């Protein structure tokens, strides 16, 4: 069996080559007016992939759109000190700073488990960051929908007493359409990588 070349409309081609030892398998192509699957069927679509160094604040504009209802942020970072990671929604390139943020924190350090809540604050909180490597994932719900509150739920693994865990829930108590966000350490700066994905509706 030979190779198959798919030529572009102007120049170049993509070549499909069989393996050295062909497996017993069949690639079925659509018939009639059938179409090949597109990226629209993928579960997560990457929107932002950005590293940052000694940043006091990281803002992302135009990442929340009508394309997706819910999003996932993945942050790998180290901090210049042991700090909280604050979070604000943005619209048209400006942070929302009204006292509309509410968050619930749950933490576990060995057998010590505790919780705190902040109501009607001017910033949310999605995690903590220490001077050793931290891994944080944050799910964001309905940020672009002007008919709903934006909420988040996040978890962070960090190297306090070798390993500790914190979970945060946030609710921005105003129905607003938000097209971006800002994260920042409560003091100092952070270095790492931020990725934002859209959950396919």
């Amino acid at each position, binding site marked *: 069996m030979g190779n198959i070349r798919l030529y572009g409309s102007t120049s170049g081609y993509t070549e499909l080559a069989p393996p050295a030892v062909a497996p017993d398998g069949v690639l079925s192509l659509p018939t009639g007016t059938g179409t090949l699957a597109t990226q629209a069927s993928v579960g997560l679509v990457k929107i*932002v992939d*950005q590293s940052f160094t000694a940043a*006091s*604040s990281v*803002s992302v*504009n*135009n990442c929340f759109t009508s394309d997706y209802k819910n999003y996932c942020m993945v942050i790998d970072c180290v901090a210049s000190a042991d700090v909280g990671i604050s979070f604000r929604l943005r619209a048209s390139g400006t942070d929302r700073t009204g006292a509309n943020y509410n968050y619930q924190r749950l933490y576990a350090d060995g057998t010590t488990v505790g919780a705190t809540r902040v109501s009607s*604050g*001017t910033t949310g909180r999605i995690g903590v960051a220490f001077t050793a490597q931290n891994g944080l994932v944050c799910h964001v719900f309905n940020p672009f929908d002007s008919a709903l509150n934006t909420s988040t739920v996040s978890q962070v693994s960090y190297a306090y007493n070798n390993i500790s865990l914190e979970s945060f829930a946030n609710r921005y108590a105003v129905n607003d359409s938000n097209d*971006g966000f800002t994260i920042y350490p409560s003091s100092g700066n952070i270095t790492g990588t931020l990725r934002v994905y859209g959950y396919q509706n």
Partner: protein
Amino acid sequence: MNVLEINAATGEVIERDFTVEELAQRELDAAAEAERVAAAEQAEAERVAARESAMLKLAALGLNESEVAAIVGGV
């Protein structure tokens, strides 16, 4: 202090200083955070003191250390 601003629609990345307004907000944020931390530390100190008091009273009733721990749980 540096701000990284990313435009997800265009891929443009700008590294800049805080604006005057952002710097003023950051100072407000720092003051609010200090106030929150102080209140949390005060609440935690009161919780620990209340727990120790409760454990002493349980011990006075005749419970041993493991029995008190079974009722009260972790730290």
